[in-house]
């Protein structure tokens, strides 16, 4: 064997070993993340989650009505459900609505209620961008971020009373006492005004872009929306609540950029710009 060939063979072996190691690392990471999601999903009390989610959704809907345009709600629901079906909790009773407010924001509640504001919809350019934003919200539900925060804050006794009352109401025996409902709604208001931990937001970004990609969309829809928000005047009143509750767009973009190799692995996927324009026109006075 000539020296050049021997060197080439050694080099090839070293490269193969490095590639194998990198693959094993990736695999271990993927398995670790999957395990994390599994334990999150198989929590015991889905009923409590659903009842808490109903009160949280009711509180948000008490602050802003859904847009009247049924075709827009149907369009957003189709995109949202398609993305949610790629998640680790496809079986939840997912519901999507557009809130009729100029404020720029999106919300998720336990149990699978997802809201995007008309103001945020108006900043988007394509269905892939919508899928990215909905993916972020769906990720909050899948990872039970608000549920865990509410359980931490509200206390076991209040939640036990509330869930018991909600079940009694469903079986027609009693109704939820106003003071219990009001106490739970108070916890919801505090949480949604203050926001989740930053770490939860970054985790929702990471899973959200993956969900959009798994649904067949260009994974860079959410980053594109964040770039648009980054370019806006931070003192714009429409952004106040979003910025009170989320890390800065530039910081979120930097975090998502760490996933670039993973995301680029999906190749070029559709953005569906025209279908988006048709789908949301009804929220802006179009038909």
């Amino acid at each position, binding site marked *: 064997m000539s020296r050049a060939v021997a060197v080439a063979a050694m080099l090839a072996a070293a490269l193969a070993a490095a590639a194998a190691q990198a693959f094993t690392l990736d695999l271990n990471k*993927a398995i670790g993340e999957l395990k994390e999601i599994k334990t999150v999903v198989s929590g015991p009390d889905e009923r409590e989650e659903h009842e808490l989610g*109903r009160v949280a*959704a*009711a509180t*948000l*809907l*008490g*602050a802003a*009505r*859904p847009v009247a345009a049924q075709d827009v*709600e149907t369009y957003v*629901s*189709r*995109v949202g*459900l398609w993305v949610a*079906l*790629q998640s680790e909790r*496809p079986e939840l*009773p997912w*519901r999507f*609505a557009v809130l009729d*407010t*100029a*404020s720029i924001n999106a919300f998720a509640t336990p149990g699978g*209620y997802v809201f995007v504001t008309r103001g945020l919809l108006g900043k988007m350019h394509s269905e892939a961008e919508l899928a990215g934003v909905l993916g972020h919200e769906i990720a909050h539900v899948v990872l039970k971020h608000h549920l865990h925060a509410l359980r931490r804050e509200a206390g076991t006794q209040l939640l036990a009373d509330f869930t018991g009352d909600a079940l009694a109401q469903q079986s027609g025996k009693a109704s939820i006492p106003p003071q219990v409902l009001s106490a739970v709604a108070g916890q919801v208001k505090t949480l*949604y*005004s203050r926001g989740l931990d930053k770490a939860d937001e970054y985790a929702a970004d990471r899973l959200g872009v993956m969900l959009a990609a*798994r*649904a*067949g969309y*260009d*994974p*860079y829809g959410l980053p*594109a929306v964040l*770039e*648009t928000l*980054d*370019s806006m*005047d*931070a*003192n714009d*009143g*429409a952004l*106040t*609540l979003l*910025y*009170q509750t989320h890390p800065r767009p530039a910081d979120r973009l930097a975090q998502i950029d760490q996933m*670039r190799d993973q*995301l*680029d*692995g*999906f*190749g*070029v*996927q559709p*953005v*569906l*710009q*025209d*279908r988006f324009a048709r789908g949301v026109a009804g929220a802006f006075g179009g038909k």
Partner: protein
Amino acid sequence: MIRKALGRALWGALCVPLAAAADAAYISQPTELRDAPAADGHVLQSLAAAAAVDIRRRQGGWYQVQVNQQTGWVRMSSLRLRAPGERAGLLDGGRALATQTVATTGVRGLSGEDLQKANPDLVAVAALDAGGVSAADARDFAAQGGLQARGPGTPPPAPPEAGQEQGQ
């Protein structure tokens, strides 16, 4: 001929042309202008931080831009849609925005105060519960859009072709 037209239609579905007139953007950290939307694209020129560019369109994590009479691709993370330091500095300075007055003209916003005042509307939730779309509907809708589910175990497809510029 047909293939070219199809290619053009597909390009339209995959790529986001921004505003009709080129959008101004700025390089946020030193980077390279490449001849293809890929890290191994040939380097056309180096771009310094704060360089102004005009955006043509976006494909995945890359923007096609024009700068110094040259058209090429830069990574999304090296580009910002605002000039450096242009945005009002309140947020960057770390001061609370909570004291800012909501100045949305004539339209009701959704602020933290609005949330605090909200009366839970369980009837609206019941209406939402009664609506919704079916999984079959969502799948048909995805298929109509040419969306293909890519399970977590799906191997990544071939990387995007370099220099897909025909028909522009």
